[in-house]
């Protein structure tokens, strides 16, 4: 990301903080997106495994005794399948755990932003400073933007936690598909929310106008 040279010269501590904040938000969202993609793969695997368990045919149809030495018994097969399923669930759990960390960092960024806002109110009164730190946004706008993003990702995380808990416990294929859709399309983080981040980056000079 290139930084602009003009308006946001970052001489004041507050301006520096806001700019770094915006960069951190961007990085967190990039990490989130990667986790989302990985998680979708694991979630899909879980659904596929559940489906094949549903249609599992036991191998007891094989009559000969020697067959049981070369083919695993139905019990062994089921145990192996259960272990595989457990492994994918663990991977998905790990993804959600990392997403919890990201949302925690987002909370931290929002708190910092509120700190900047509080300081400005202290220095300049409730109206804030007269000359904006950036192109056109008041400091309050940054705080509000942070709140919006934080709320969206917190809610999305809650959704993912429900999916994580319930995905392996259902066999209804329509519900499976809805769980996967929810994971992939992230209904609480629509495109508009991401635009809010883009606006944030523009204002702080991380993206050139």
């Amino acid at each position, binding site marked *: 990301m290139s930084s602009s040279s003009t308006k946001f010269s970052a001489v004041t501590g507050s301006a520096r903080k806001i700019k770094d904040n915006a960069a951190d938000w961007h990085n967190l969202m990039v990490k989130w997106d990667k986790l989302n993609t990985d998680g979708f793969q694991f979630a899909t695997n879980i659904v596929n495994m559940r489906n094949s368990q549903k249609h599992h045919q036991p191998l007891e149809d094989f009559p000969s005794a020697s067959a049981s030495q070369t083919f695993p018994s139905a019990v062994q097969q089921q145990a192996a399948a259960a272990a595989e399923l457990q492994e994918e669930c663990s991977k998905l759990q790990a993804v959600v755990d990392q997403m919890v960390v990201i949302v925690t960092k987002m909370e931290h960024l929002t708190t910092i932003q509120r700190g900047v806002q509080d300081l400005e109110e202290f220095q300049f009164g409730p109206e804030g400073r007269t000359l904006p730190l950036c192109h056109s946004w008041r400091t309050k706008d940054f705080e509000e933007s942070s709140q919006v993003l934080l709320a969206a990702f917190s*809610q999305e995380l*809650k*959704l993912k936690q*429900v999916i994580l*808990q*319930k995905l392996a416990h259902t066999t209804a*294929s*329509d*519900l499976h*598909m*809805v*769980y*996967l*859709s*929810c994971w992939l*399309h*992230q*209904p*609480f983080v*629509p*495109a508009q929310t991401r635009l809010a981040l883009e606006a944030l980056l523009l204002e702080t000079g991380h993206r050139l106008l």
Partner: protein
Amino acid sequence: MREVFGVFFLSRTLHSALMSLQGALRKSFAALQNHRAVWRSVLEECDPLMESLGNLGEQMQALSRVRVSDTPLGVFPDLQERLQFQLLQAVDVLLHRLWDRMSRLQAIRDSIGNQVSTVLQLYQDAADALGLAAATERSSVVPSLADMLGWLQDAERFYRRQFLQRKTLLQTLRLDDLAQVEGASKSWKSLESPDSEQQITDNLCRLSFFMESQ
């Protein structure tokens, strides 16, 4: 005596008309080869888009059959509408990309059409003077004028029809008919016409000697 067509005693003006017609034909067939390659690559870009479209149709169908409020997802009161909205947005993005490809296909169809009508016009201008014999004369390695013009027209008709069918499919896509959306990819694939394509390829093969000679 030029023996490309084995036609003797051609007057000089007729001869030059014939040469320019042959030149135009070579140019058209060369252009057709290029257009076909570009057409194929644009269609290949459409395949994953259509597949994604069908996939989204499947997702929307599943969502319509589930009452989210009766599931563990019911703790999120507005989830059904939000997800529905996201899916529709995703469909919208896909359709945009598909229409972008369609306009590229349209440009190819138009190019082919222009090429063909130019050559046909050239022929028509010289037709009476050339006469039927020259038009239908063929050798073992070079097809007749009539054949070559016919093949060009066949190709033009093929691409015109393909474009119309594909455009119609996309235009008649109704987002409230989820079964149709889910089946879109299959319908798209069924528009392929490998026999007709092969026919054009075969015709172009018959032209190789003609294309190389001057």
